[in-house]
């Protein structure tokens, strides 16, 4: 039975590990390398590493940084940050990423998804979708680390990404990110019901129960979390132990 994954997310900006609230008020929380080593020692299921400043600064994540990080990672690693060409994908896979996340480029140049899938295989291509819920209740995709509205619905983008060859969706609720108030269960469910590729829920995890709901209620194949592991005593292993007690298949 395929196990549900619990995936710590590391966000990187200005040479440091950072965390924000609703993609804003970024504060430095430590060394990225240190965090990677700790997670590696803990044997987590996977790690997601995103350079949140790259797109807005018109560059791609630093390959030598990823090379160093991958050297400390003996678990699957997904990397993103300003990826905009198949050469970027090639370089990242070469230095040690297992999967490459495409966010801004998925909207500005969707052909990149199909090109990357054609050359490297769908299983390497993660399309990362950041979505904001407006007071009207409507959802809208934002790119460039939540700064630029697109007028696109996240469900439509997820379906398009799948049809272009994406292997996985990383779905983040912008307004919930960093709040530890729970995932946007409705958003996740809309997307998991619209696609048949795995969906990783992200943005808002504040408790193990939140993760349970994202999986059981909303159909997420994996749960990503950042603040809960950085700012509380919660750990990925404890999360999985809890999920297992709720009859969710996890790797322990």
């Amino acid at each position: 039975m395929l196990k549900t994954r619990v995936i710590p997310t590391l966000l990187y900006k200005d040479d440091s590990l950072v965390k924000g609230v609703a993609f804003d008020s970024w504060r430095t929380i430590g060394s990225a390398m240190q965090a990677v080593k700790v997670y590696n020692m803990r044997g987590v299921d996977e790690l997601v590493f995103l350079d949140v400043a790259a797109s807005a600064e018109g560059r791609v994540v630093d390959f030598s940084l990823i090379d160093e990080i991958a050297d400390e990672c003996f678990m699957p690693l997904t990397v993103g940050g300003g990826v905009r060409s198949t050469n970027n994908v090639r370089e990242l896979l070469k230095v040690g990423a297992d999967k490459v996340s495409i966010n801004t480029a998925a909207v500005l140049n969707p052909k990149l998804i199909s090109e990357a899938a054609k050359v490297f295989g769908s299983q390497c291509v993660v399309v990362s979708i950041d979505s904001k819920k407006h007071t009207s209740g409507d959802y809208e995709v934002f790119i460039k680390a939540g700064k630029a509205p697109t007028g696109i619905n996240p469900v439509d983008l997820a379906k398009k990404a799948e049809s272009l060859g994406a292997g996985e969706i990383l779905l983040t609720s912008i307004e919930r990110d960093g709040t530890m108030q729970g995932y946007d269960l409705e958003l996740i469910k809309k997307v998991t019901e619209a696609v048949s590729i795995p969906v990783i829920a992200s943005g808002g995890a504040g408790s193990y129960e939140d993760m349970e709901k994202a999986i059981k209620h909303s159909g997420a194949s994996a749960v990503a979390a950042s603040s809960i592991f950085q700012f509380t005593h919660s750990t990925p292993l404890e999360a999985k132990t809890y999920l297992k007690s709720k009859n969710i298949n996890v790797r322990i």
Partner: protein
Amino acid sequence: MAMTVAIIDYDAGNLDSVNRAVKECGGAAFITKNPEDLKKCSHIILPGVGVFSDSIKRLRQSGMERALQTQVLENKIPFLGICLGMQLLAEQGTEGGEANGLGFINGEVVRFQPEQGERIPHIGWNEVVFNQGCPLFEGIESGKDFYFVHSFHFVCAKTEDIAATTPYCGGFVSAVWKDNIFGVQFHPEKSQTVGFKVLKNFLGLC
């Protein structure tokens, strides 16, 4: 010859992870694009992340296929194919268009047919259930989770070549074994403790 692993570079990603993992397991390894180098090793690993049709073409065009036929089929050097590297052992693959594989193990590589609720690609940790006394799995409990990330799988023509299966889409072959030739669909270099045990077992073969 002292134990040295040749890790084949055919532009199919993921080399560094395999290289580091082999070293973590106490092995000496080098990465090569040169078919001649297959004469200078005691073990061969064909890693792989990519698309079947393009990858087999590159193996063929570089002369690597011929070198593999000599070293693996004739000289019986222990060989381990990982993920795409295992799939390329097949006679035929369908990813990226129909193409002939190395044909070292009978069978073909086809896309998963998901059952109710199953998502493709198959991504994450899943159980590997051993079929026979395969030396790769020595000292490992059957049913342990290994890391998978793929949309295609190897359908063996002969059941005796099946070394392990994994429950997904009705069950699929997750490892193959024939003489000195081994293939694993999962990524041992990413599967932490159990994965490293598989690599150590491979390195221990003569």
